[in-house]
């Protein structure tokens, strides 16, 4: 490791100032579950390390009438233990519960999962499906971008993600998540799918967003599947057809990749699991 100076920051303002001063020589550390390994292996060699894990304002889970706002320093454990993310937001709870291990979930944060930029980050597909907006601060000011666009428009070296915000769901909406890992604990996603589905009164899909993890360079919306599912009822036939639509767009995107034949087969189970879970949670939510 090559660190010359480290800071235990107590406010976003202080962090923004330090980042403004040091720029690309500095790195932020929160849960540390990825960055400490990168430091140790000299994959990154910053001179300055700024700890943001104890900044109170980043650790809050807030809600207003229409939104839920997660501080970027909220840990996966904090999400899984919060009743807000049960019920029809269950997909986010499930994704966070499947991250790493208890130790990793105790330290790893939602903001870190975004900033680290991995295609296999578990919490991202459900947040993209929710249409989450992230708030980014720097010495130049504040900007808000859809999480979906983050991967084409990444953080600058003087920026920090402070908030992740999404609209609350209505009773006809359900968020679901399914992941394929090699084992139950400590398994990086081979692929994952999140879906946010809203049914109309006839039981047809009124609105839908589907997003995937590890099916491309970064987590992304699966718009062809969404288009197919609009105005459909979810049943065996439409599930099979949706799988074919997804496989076709994967063929295009992952052309020539050695993992394509495997992921093509695997994706059928994961999308099926996701949509079946929707049917199941639907009935359970209604039963309440």
């Amino acid at each position, binding site marked *: *490791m090559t660190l010359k100076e*480290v800071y235990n920051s107590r406010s976003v303002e202080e962090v923004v100032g330090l980042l403004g001063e040091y720029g690309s020589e500095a790195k932020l550390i929160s849960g540390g579950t990825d960055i*400490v390994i990168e430091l140790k292996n000299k994959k990154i060699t910053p001179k300055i*390390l700024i700890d943001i894990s104890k900044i109170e304002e980043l650790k809050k889970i807030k809600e207003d009438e229409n939104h839920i706002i997660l501080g970027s320093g909220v840990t996966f454990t904090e999400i899984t233990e919060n009743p807000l993310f049960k019920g029809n937001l269950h997909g986010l709870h499930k994704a966070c519960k499947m991250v790493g291990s*208890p130790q990793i979930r105790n330290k790893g944060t939602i903001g870190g999962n975004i900033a680290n930029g991995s295609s296999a980050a578990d919490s991202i597909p459900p947040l993209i499906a929710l249409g989450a907006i992230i708030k980014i601060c720097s010495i130049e000011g504040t900007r808000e971008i859809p999480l979906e666009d983050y991967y084409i428009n990444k953080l600058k070296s003087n920026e920090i993600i402070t908030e992740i915000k999404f609209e609350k769901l209505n009773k006809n909406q359900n968020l679901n998540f399914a992941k394929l890992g090699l084992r139950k604990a400590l398994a990086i996603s081979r692929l994952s799918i999140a879906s946010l589905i809203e049914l109309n009164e006839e039981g047809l899909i009124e609105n839908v967003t589907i997003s995937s993890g590890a099916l491309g360079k970064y987590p992304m919306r699966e718009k062809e599947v969404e288009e197919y599912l609009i105005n459909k009822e979810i049943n065996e036939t439409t599930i099979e057809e949706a799988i074919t639509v997804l496989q076709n767009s994967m063929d295009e995107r992952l052309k020539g990749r050695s993992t394509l034949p495997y992921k093509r087969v695997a994706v059928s189970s994961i999308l099926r699991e996701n949509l079946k879970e929707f049917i199941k949670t639907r009935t359970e939510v209604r039963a309440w």
Partner: protein
Amino acid sequence: MVNISLIVNEKLFEVSVSENLRLIDLLRDELGLIGTKEGCGEGECGACTVIMDGETVNSCLVMAFQANGSNILTIEGMEKEGKIHPIQQAYIDVGAVQCGFCIPGMVLSTKALLDKKPHPSKDEIREGISGNLCRCTGYNKMIYAAEKAIEYMEEGK
């Protein structure tokens, strides 16, 4: 060097540490708490698990300076007045100990679980120790040990 203060096993330490030091290095090399083990150095095996401010963490993934102001429990802090913790006794009694390298981390994960949830189901015990790898036992003995520990704690043993 950076000055930090932290509580380890109920004792206050004020130390000057290298910016590059990890928490596990601080515990082992500087404070001599060698019960914390390094098995992989990347958060996969859980051998370096300690309890930091009430929650388990992999001490190989925490920088030493981040522990400033924290309260840490290592395996050495489980003994009280010369008496080992009921979880440790249970590990001995059910035969959950083989090579022993995972045991400090396993015991601390079990403690953190039982602190939060005194009567976990078998599945919850499994999940509680899911961040700790053991290559000898196949894990069943650790689950029995947790169940036995709950009995011991209720008996006040």
